[in-house]
C-alpha cells in the first residue's frame, strides 16, 4: 500500500504517522502542501496531526485551501482513501471531505492523555483488523476536538453508521470520559463511501509497548490489508 503523507507549514506529526505506516509495511512518500499533484500511485493520502498554519484563525482553515487539497479532493472523488488525524481531521472538514466542524474543547483547555475509544464497525479499510465494539486505548492531544454538526448531518451520520469511533471509559461507557464535548461522543467519522476517515485521537502514537501500548497498530494493519 502506497501512502502519501502531506506536510503543511506547522504540521508536526508527519514523522509519527510515517513510522506507524512503515511499521505496517506501507510504502510512504511525503508530499508538500504547495505541490499541485499527489505522488504517482498514491493509494492513501494522510493528513497528519499538527498545527498547520499555527491553527490560526480557525484550525485547518488555511491548510484546507492549499493547492495540494484540490488533488486530495480529486483523489477522494475517484474513491481513493484519505486518513485525517487530529489537525488532519480539521483540515478534512474545512476542505469539504467530511461534514461538520471541530470547535474549541468544552473545557477550553488543551488535553493530552490516554483515551479509550469504542470501535463502532470493523467492515472498513481502516478497522478490519479490529472487532466491532472493541475498546481500544490510544491517546489524544488537542485543543479543538469538539465535533459539532447540524442535526440533519448528525442524523445521517448515525443512520448510515458513519461514526468510526466514540470516546468512552475503560468499560466502554460512551457517556463517560468525553474529553472535549463532541456530540454523541464522536471521535471519528467516515465519508459516505467509507473511504475517508477523520479522527481526533492519535493511533500512530500507540504502536509500541515501550511508549504506552499497541492498540493503535490495528488501524495501520487494516490499511495494509485493504489497499
Amino acid at each position, binding site marked *: 500500500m502506497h501512502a502519501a503523507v502531506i506536510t503543511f*507549514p*506547522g504540521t*508536526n*506529526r508527519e*514523522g*509519527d504517522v510515517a*513510522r506507524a505506516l512503515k511499521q505496517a509495511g506501507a510504502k510512504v512518500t511525503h508530499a508538500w502542501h504547495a505541490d499541485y499533484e499527489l505522488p504517482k500511485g498514491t493509494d492513501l493520502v494522510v493528513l497528519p*496531526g*499538527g*498545527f498547520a*498554519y*499555527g*491553527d*490560526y484563525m480557525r484550525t485547518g482553515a488555511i491548510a484546507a485551501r492549499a493547492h495540494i487539497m484540490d488533488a486530495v479532493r480529486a483523489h477522494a472523488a475517484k474513491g481513493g482513501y484519505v486518513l485525517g488525524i487530529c489537525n488532519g481531521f480539521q483540515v478534512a472538514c474545512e476542505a469539504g471531505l467530511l461534514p461538520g466542524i471541530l470547535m474549541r474543547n468544552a473545557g477550553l*483547555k*488543551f*488535553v*493530552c*492523555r490516554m483515551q479509550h475509544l469504542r470501535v463502532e464497525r470493523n467492515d472498513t479499510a481502516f478497522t478490519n483488523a479490529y472487532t466491532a465494539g472493541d475498546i481500544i486505548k490510544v*491517546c489524544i*492531544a488537542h*485543543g479543538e476536538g469538539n465535533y459539532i454538526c447540524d442535526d440533519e448531518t448528525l442524523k445521517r451520520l448515525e443512520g448510515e453508521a458513519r461514526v468510526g469511533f466514540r470516546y468512552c471509559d475503560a468499560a466502554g461507557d460512551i457517556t463517560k470520559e468525553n474529553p472535549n464535548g463532541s456530540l454523541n461522543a464522536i471521535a471519528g467519522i467516515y465519508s459516505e463511501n467509507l473511504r475517508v476517515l477523520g479522527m481526533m485521537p*492519535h493511533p*500512530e*502514537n500507540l*504502536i*509500541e509497548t*515501550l*511508549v*504506552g501500548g499497541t492498540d493503535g497498530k490495528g488501524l495501520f494493519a487494516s490499511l495494509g490489508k485493504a489497499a
Partner: protein
Amino acid sequence: MFLKNEPEITPELVKAHGLKPEEYDRFVALIGRTPTITELGIVSAMWNEHCSYKSSKIHLKTLPTKGKRVVYGPGENAGVVDIGDGMVVAFKMESHNHPSYIEPYQGATTGVGGILRDVFTMGARPIACLNALRFGEPDHPKTRHLVSGVVAGIGGYGNSFGVPTVAGQVGFHPRYNGNILVNAMAVGVAKREMIFTSKATGVGMPIVYLGSKTGRDGIHGATMASAEFDDKSEEKRPTVQVGDPFAEKLLLEACLEIMAKGCVIAIQDMGAAGLTCSAVEMGAKGDLGIELDLDKVPCREEGMSAYEMMLSESQERMLMVLHPHKEAEARAIFVKWGLDFAVIGHTTDTLRFVIKHGGDVKADLPIKELGDEAPEYDRPWSEPKKRFAIRKGDVPAPISNAEALLKLLGSPDLCSKRWVWEQYDHLILGNTVQQPGGDAAVIRIEDGPKGLATTCDVTPRYVEADPFEGGKQAVAECWRNLCAVGAEPIALTDNLNFGNPERPEIMGQFVMAIRGIGEAARRLDFPVVSGNVSLYNETNGQGILPTPTIGGVGLLEDVTKSASLAFKNVGDAIVLIGETKGWLGASAYLATICGHEEGAPPPVDLDHEFHHGIIVRQLIERGMVTAVHDLSDGGLAIGLAEMAMAGNLGAMIQDFD
C-alpha cells in the same frame, strides 16, 4: 556623517537605561567621547545584569564545566555533551520571570520560544522541553490568573512547535507572590559534526538576518530583566514580546535545512537585546569587526530608529554568517518556508562594531571591549548564619501521622500536577518512554536503543535555610532522580533565580549556593555545561526564596531498561537504601503541618549519594528491581504513597522504632 542631531545624554537618560553613573563614566573613557543615543542603548543592553553577568561572573567561574563528555561548556547558546555513536545532546535552561509577571501568557511563550532557539541554533533538533514554575500562595489574588496564563502559554507554544513537554516542577510559596519564576529548559540531539557555534570566521563574510520581521517588541526587555519590581510595574509596560510558535516551527526547519546544505559559517539566535548581543558576540568571539546597515533590516513597523532596531526583542529571529557562494540556495530555502532572509552587513578586520542607518553612522564601538570591558563586580556579601538542627524528638506532632500524610499529599507543592502537564503535549514524536509524574522523564533517541533521561529540581526552603547545603541538595536530588530511572547522569544546566545582589545577605545566598552546587557537581562528576542567572527577583524590597533550579540530563544505553516508581507486583519486598536520621529542619512536614520553616536542612553526604546512585543503576541494569523512587520532599511516607498510588497497590511497612 557621524553624530548628527543626537539627543543630549543627560544623567536621567543614563539612569533610565539602568546604568550606574560610574558605569557610564567607564563607557565614556572606553570610547573617548560622548556616546550617541544608539551607542548608549547598545551598552545598556550589553552591560546589564542579564547579558554581562556582572554580579555573578566571578562566582560562576568556580563551577566545574569540564568533563570527558563535554564538547561545549558555558559560553555557547547551549551546552553540548557527547553521548557516543557520533551523537551529541545540546541543552540549556533560561528564565522569563519578569515578562511573565506582567503578561503571563506571552511571557511564558517567549520563554519557551527563546530556549528552543538556543538549542536549534547549535544545529540540534529539540526532542524534549521542561519547565520549573514558582508561584505565590494559591489564594493570593493574582496567582490564579498567573498560573492559567503561564501554563496555557507554555502549552500553546510547545504543543504548536511540536516538541513534547515531559518534565518539570510547579511550586507555591508566599515569597513568590509579587515575583513568579518561569524557568524553561530544552533538550536537543544532533550528529556531532553538525554542531554550529556563534563564532564568526573570515573577513567580508555576509551577515544574514533570518526569521520574522522586527517591531518595537520588548524594547528594554533585557534591561527590564534587571529592573526591580515595584507596585507601579503594571504601568511600566514595555511593549510586550509576542511569541509565534508557527513562525518558530518554520524557522527550525529552515535553519536545519541550510545547516545540512553547508550554507552556515556561524549562527546565533537573537535573544535578550536582539540584534545587539547576537551581532557583538558573533564578531567578538571570532576577533572580527561587524558592520551592519539597518536600512536592510526587515521591519514590520514604519519609521523605526536605529536605537529601536538594535534593542528590539521581536521573537523568532536569528543572525547568521553565510558562506557567500551559498546565498541563492539559502535564500530559496527561506522563501520556501515563508521567512525573511536579508543580508544586513558583513564581517570586517577593524574589530569595530559599526551601525549605519539612513546613510549616517549611528554607532562605532570597539567590539572586543564591549564584552570584555563590561563591569565585573565582587559585591560585598554576608555569610548566612547557620541554623541549628531540628530532630524528630524536638517536634510534638500536632495531628496523627495518618492525617499528616493526607494533608501533605494534598498540599499545593506535593499534590499530583496532572492538572498541569495534561495541558502539555507530552506524547508527540512517539518517543516518550516515561511520561511526566515520575522521578525523571525518559525519551528514546530516534529509533533507540539509546535514550535520555531529564529532570529539573530544587528545594527553595532548603536553600533559604542554608544556601550551601541547599545548593548541594539541588544537584544531588537531580542526580538521584536520573539514577532512579536507570540513567547515567552526564551533565547539568542551571537557572540561578535570586533577589537583589546589591543586598549583602542576598549576595551571600548566591555565593554560598554556587559553592554548594560546585562541590556537588565536582564530587558526582556532573559538570555544568550551560545556565542562566536571573537577579533582582524582588518586589517592594522583599526577595524571593533563593531558587537555583538544576536541570539534569542522563544517558541510557538501552532505553528499554529504564525503571519507574510504580509498584508492580503483590509480594515484592520494599528496600530502603540510605540511613534515616529523622531530619525535620526546613522540611515539608514542618511547613505544611506545623506552619513554620525553621531549622537547618538535611546535610548532603555526597559520597553516599554517589555510591547509592551507582548501586541503584546496577540493580536496574541487571533487572533485579521492579520499581525505584528517590525520597525528597515529604520523605519516606510521601515516597511510599506515590509508589503505591502509581502502581494501584498497597504496602505493608514494619514499625521502625
